[in-house]
């Protein structure tokens, strides 16, 4: 009987598909419906009816242009900083750590043993007046005597960089570790000095890790609201914070839904352009 064999892959897909359908597809449809609703005339707060008001999207976007821009700016900065920190780290773990490799990898994921929220609150302490960072930077005259770090964009970007660092480090490590060290030796053998060998062989071969790491950092960072809520101020509000307040505080479900969709679409477009540009499909 060949029938069961043909059906096996579908049977294996079924649990995942059922789960995604229930908890992703249905809510997305529901969200899409909500995004074009308007308040019922004479109804209570939070009572809406479907009127196919696509103007909600334009209105939501126009009202929150600044927060959108900020979200993508902060997410980009956090991604760049995380890449700058994670690449040397992953490189050292992959090529130079010897017997300490496993310990270092455990240390990279160690932050996951504590909650995301707790760690972000801890950053508030670290960057606060009582912490050692601000007095330290002041005594070195890197920041002025009156300057604070909490409730600033610096704190938000720093928090995001920190929180997403493991997501950048692990894929980078995985792709660097896969590089056959003999290809790097071969580059040296073929008249490439250390820097050229790194630029021409190591970097291109680690590109899949760079793409994976930047996506895993940028996508959640663009939608993040925890860092901005805990480490920022009203001036550092990101689009995640707007959606959260529209939904829970103002009870403006349609606007929250429209913003969510706009954010998703924007991320999708950016990511597609990025992958096209990086040309990962050509990489081995």
């Amino acid at each position, binding site marked *: 009987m060949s029938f069961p064999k043909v059906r096996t892959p579908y049977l294996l897909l079924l649990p995942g598909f059922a789960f995604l359908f229930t908890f992703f597809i249905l809510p997305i449809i529901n969200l899409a419906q909500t995004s074009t609703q308007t308040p019922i005339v004479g109804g209570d707060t939070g009572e809406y009816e479907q009127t196919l008001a696509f103007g909600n999207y334009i209105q939501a976007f126009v009202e929150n242009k600044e927060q959108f821009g900020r979200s993508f700016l902060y997410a980009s900065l956090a991604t760049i900083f995380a890449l700058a920190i994670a690449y040397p780290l992953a490189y050292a773990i992959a090529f130079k750590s010897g017997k300490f490799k496993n310990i270092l990898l455990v240390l990279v994921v160690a932050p996951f043993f504590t909650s995301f929220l707790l760690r972000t609150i801890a950053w508030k302490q670290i960057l606060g007046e009582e912490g050692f960072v601000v007095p330290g930077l002041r005594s070195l005259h890197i920041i002025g005597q009156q300057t604070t770090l909490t409730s600033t964009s610096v704190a938000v970007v720093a928090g995001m960089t920190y929180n997403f660092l493991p997501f950048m480090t692990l894929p980078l490590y995985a792709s660097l570790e896969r590089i*056959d060290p*003999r*290809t790097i*030796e*071969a*580059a*040296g*053998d*073929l*008249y*490439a*000095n250390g820097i*050229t060998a790194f630029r*021409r*062989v190591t970097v*291109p*071969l680690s*590109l899949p890790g760079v793409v994976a790491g930047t996506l895993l950092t940028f996508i959640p960072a663009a939608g993040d609201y925890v860092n901005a809520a805990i480490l920022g101020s009203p001036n550092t509000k990101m689009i995640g914070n707007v959606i959260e307040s529209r939904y829970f505080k103002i009870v403006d479900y349609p606007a929250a839904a429209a913003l969510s969709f706009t954010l998703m679409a924007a991320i999708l477009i950016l990511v597609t352009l990025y992958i096209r540009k990086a040309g990962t499909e050509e*990489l*081995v």
Partner: protein
Amino acid sequence: MSSDAISARGDLRLTRITKSYGDFKAVDDLTLTIPKGSFFALLGPSGCGKTTTLRMVAGLEEPTVGSIHLGDTDITTTRPYQRPINTVFQNYALFPHLTIFENIAFGLRRRGIKDVKEQVDKVLNLVELPHLAERKPTQLSGGQQQRIALARAIVNRPALLLLDEPLGALDLKLRRQMQIELKWIQREVGLTFVHVTHDQEEAMTMADTIAVMNEGKIEQMGSPADLYDNPETAFVANFLGQSNLIKGKIDGNDGDNLIVDLFGQKISMPKKRSHAVDTSLYAGIRPEKFRISLLGTAVKGNTLTGGRIEDVSYIGVSTQYVVAMPWGQELMVFEQNDDGVPPFDKGDEVLISWEPSFTFGLRGDEDIDAGTEVNPEELEEQ
């Protein structure tokens, strides 16, 4: 200073090279000259120091003691990218992200050569794969990757081309074919090739000169025929082909020959083929040099009587016999199946004879099992 190294040409000279890792000496006081234009093989079992030697020549390792010269230029501490030396790596180490064309052009581009197309096309034709220029390495078979690795190295016309077990990953048939091709390409391009291998047949097929290495030292160096016909040590006698080593005592002189007593039977051998230092020696005879005759037959040359056929294996071109001798030793004999005489049977009482000039003599204090415990065919990688 370093820019001089890149244009250095001439013989490669290793002078008293030692490479230690802690207490372990991978290469031990090695001195070696490889003449320009030769096809030179470093042959030995895994762990004998041959790959370490190659890596020091390439600049991937630095000797603990000693110096390396190329012509008159000292390159002992020159960085790999400043040496006019290229390597064909074991498992090839092609760049997976670059096309075959760009893999081959890599070395040329690093030296600032802009117009690479003509040279790349030329070597692609030499290795007979011009149609694969735009492919990626993973789309090629093992044999094709091997040729590209070779092309990527020779396109640079280095003073020295190093080949690190270049055929180790290929199957037997392809390996045989590539051995002949490599030899042909070496003559064609006229570069010095230094080839590292554990496969004695590969070394003998390709190289003009072979250095047999064991435990970080060179056991013997010479042409394939020299090494095979007149090994100086038990290790060489056993590592290159098979040998029968029979314990004996030098019992006098007869002109240019020595009279040797082998368990009471006298044989003779040329004096100049003996490497013994006193009267004790091992007489060595290759299995195919022996002739077997039934007891009572009149034969010429050296003769040993009292043998009994212990085992017979018919393998087509030849028949291999194990002959038990009265002193308890079993001798290997390979007889060509070219005389129409039916093979001997197990249990036949025979005598063994051979041409005295085929005998070689080893020191009596040698370990006669040296070099036998490693089977080169079974060692794929170190």
